[in-house]
């Protein structure tokens, strides 16, 4: 015999007077709050950082641990000084500590990490009014500050990356130079070596390119054929870079997570990529002539060599090089330092893409993407005013 479910019978009495909760709508519904947003961003940054740990081993763990603990410590101390109880801002400090570590080279000394993390949290966030009020992204601010303070340490000529067979557990200190620039990370490592020393694509692109004798377009061919790492290395991160900058694939997965949760407006990332690509294709690339002079290759995006579109390859290297993927996909969507509306985000992405390439190609600036983000952040109030929505019927 089937038993009736009793839970559907009225067994609960009506609420006592005064026990009902009142308050404005929404009732029992709503989008994710601040903590889920911070957690999602932290998971996304964690993906990039995890890729860094795989590529750089315990050196990356060291940078991440120092940066995060300094950020948490400083934030807690600041909160204690201001007499605030521990709150959601600590989880945000963890996030920016993590993101800041992602921008650093894995072999950087601990002083740089401590100083940078301190600047990021105190100057970038706490003194700028905290979440919701800061104009510049704290991580970009901290990165640019340490770039100026410790220029030599942050712009090494060669960036190490663990070789095949030594991922995660290898030692970056035992690195061997690539037999020739642009070598592939899949080359067999010399005896005793556990890592390769590679030249960063970013550095190759911002300094003058060498050229084979002939037309300036040959410089691009030489770059794509001899200097640049292979595509697989570029995407997987074996081409070297910062802890979280190197692995483009991990950044793309992280961006997918943010888009899925609705925290990255995909048109912004798309405009940043498209505008950066267009700028790289149009801005003249500097190449060296055989007599040691610097010539420029106009409209490098259209360069063809033996029917192969080397120009397009050159543009694609620009898009994946340096801090641009990290900035465009993980730092720019930060709610506080980005514009308010979707249209504002389009302009914001375009500015980041354009300035990154401009600063990299024309000014030869290291950490160009972070400078570009700072400049775009500075323009956010203007963008907000320009893109303020028109109220219906006005």
């Amino acid at each position: 015999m089937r038993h009736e479910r009793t839970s559907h019978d009225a067994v609960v009495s009506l609420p006592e007077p005064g026990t009902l909760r009142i308050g404005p709508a929404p009732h029992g519904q709503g989008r994710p709050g601040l903590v889920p947003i911070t957690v999602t961003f932290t998971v996304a940054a964690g993906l990039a950082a995890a890729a860094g740990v795989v590529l750089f081993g315990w050196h990356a763990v060291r940078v991440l641990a120092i940066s995060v603990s300094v950020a948490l410590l400083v934030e807690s101390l600041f909160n204690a000084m201001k007499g605030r109880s521990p709150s959601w801002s600590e989880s945000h400090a963890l996030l920016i500590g993590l993101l800041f570590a992602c921008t650093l080279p894995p072999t950087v000394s601990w002083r740089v990490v401590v100083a940078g993390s301190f600047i990021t949290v105190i100057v970038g966030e706490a003194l700028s009014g905290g979440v919701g009020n800061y104009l510049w992204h704290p991580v970009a601010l901290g990165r640019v500050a340490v770039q100026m303070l410790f220029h030599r340490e942050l712009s090494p000529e060669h960036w190490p990356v663990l070789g095949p067979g030594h991922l995660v557990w290898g030692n970056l200190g035992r690195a061997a130079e690539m037999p020739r620039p642009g070598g592939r990370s899949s080359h067999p490592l010399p005896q005793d070596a556990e890592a390769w020393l590679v030249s960063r694509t970013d550095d190759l692109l911002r300094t003058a390119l060498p050229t084979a004798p002939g037309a300036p377009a040959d410089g691009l061919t030489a770059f794509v054929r001899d200097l640049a790492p292979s595509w697989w290395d570029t995407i997987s991160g074996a081409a070297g870079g910062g802890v979280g900058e190197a692995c483009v694939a991990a950044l793309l997965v992280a961006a997918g997570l943010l888009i899925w949760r609705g925290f990255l407006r995909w048109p912004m990332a798309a405009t940043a990529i498209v505008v950066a690509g267009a700028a790289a294709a149009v801005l003249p690339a500097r190449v060296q002539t055989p007599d040691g002079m610097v010539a420029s290759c106009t409209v490098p995006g259209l360069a063809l060599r033996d029917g192969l579109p080397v120009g397009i390859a050159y543009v694609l290297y620009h898009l994946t090089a340096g801090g641009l993927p990290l900035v465009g996909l993980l730092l720019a969507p930060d709610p506080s330092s980005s514009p308010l509306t979707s249209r504002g985000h389009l302009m914001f992405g375009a500015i980041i893409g354009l300035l990154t390439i401009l600063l990299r190609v024309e000014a030869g600036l290291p950490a160009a993407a972070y400078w570009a983000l700072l400049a775009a952040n500075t323009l956010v109030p203007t963008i907000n005013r320009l893109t303020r929505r028109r109220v219906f019927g006005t």
Partner: protein
Amino acid sequence: MTSVLQQVFGRGGGFRGGIFLPPRRETTAGMPVQSLPPPSFLCVPLQYDDGPPATPCVEVGDRVRGGDRIGRADSPDAVDVHAPLAGRITALVRVDSARRTDIPAMRLEISPDQAEQPPTPLRVPDDWDGPGLDELVQAAEAGGVTDDRASPAGLAALLAETHRRGVRHVIINALPGEPMLTAGAVLLDDHLDAIVRLAGWIGMAVGAEHTWLAVDRADGARLRRCRIAARRVPLGRTRRTRMPAPQETHRAAPVAGATVRLAPLANKYPQHVPVVLAASIVGVETPPGGTTLDVGVLVLEARTMVDLATALAWAGHEPVPMTHRVVTVTGPAVARPGHYRIPVGTRFEDVLRHVGLRQAVRRVVDGGPLTGRALGHLDVVVTKHTSGVLALDRATDRVPEPGPCVRCGWCQDDCPVGLDPQALLDLAERGDVTAATAWHPRACVECGLCSYVCPAQLPLAEGVARLKRAVSCK
């Protein structure tokens, strides 16, 4: 997955802003309308919404039958009040509704031997030419018919004003609207023919060029049935009739406004708000503080058609005034959720007692989850405006913990009319009404979306609404 794709690619859909709410399986979807057994007494409110109260036209101690007029509208903004059930008037009292406190009402002791009245089935005869404007206005006036979202809310005054000012478009809203409130969809299913035909007649009566039925384009089955119903409008007035029979053209030439066209719209919240409907279908923008009548559009709810059809007289149908309200009673704490036909003036306590509770209730809401009002006590009565009764338990009631604004811009991005709710909340907190005027808070349609999307859980919609009232009063 659909929702993700909609989120990523689904912008647009007729108007800028708005969001696709996460899809949900409604517990009450498709449930038939049931009657609520008569409670021992009713407190029938004499005042509807912001209008003036009706004057009592029966004495305390009088016996009334169901449908008798007990309150007479003296001014055009007021609406007539009728006794929902037979009984005896025992007192003039003051009650609270969800939207207003301390409104005059009549306490009606219900005769205990009263049989439950089954709702009258609406079968509009096929050969009926339909009522003219006078007939419609008279029926709406005599039946005390109201429309939820219109202003003025009394349908008679609204139709008269519409005719006086003239409109080009009439839009009948049959969109699902807020989540959890499914009564509108059931009424649409039950009375589709009556709704479509009445829509055509109203369009004709007020002299509109186009009459639209706004339906959810994602709901394929309902869309198809609406299309069939719109084609069935007799007298060769449908646009789709390619070759009308000769005698039909002779009987009545195609008349503008009689054709009911379907407007299949994406169910992006808040598509169902009149201002947004006028913008998506007609492409006109209502100025702040105005109604859609200012731009030549009359927007009515589909369920108002049902009430109006009930209040009309035709062969074999006695006019019945609007005395009941079909309400979605749902929520995790409700033991028997469903659609209930509730007499106006029933206290929420009686409603909840009948549907039963299976969890301790933490919050009772009049209306939907996004715009409804939480009640402080259960002596509040059901009015002609009540569309839903939600009872939330401890687990589902989300207590907002307002945090700092992170300037994510979601409120501004998703606002259907382009307001900046966060700036307006700042102004509301400062009480700066003069400065707020430049930000047009009167354009707010009170859809509650800004509060819904705010990650800091700020009471944005409440702040903007407060400012809207302050600016309107200035």
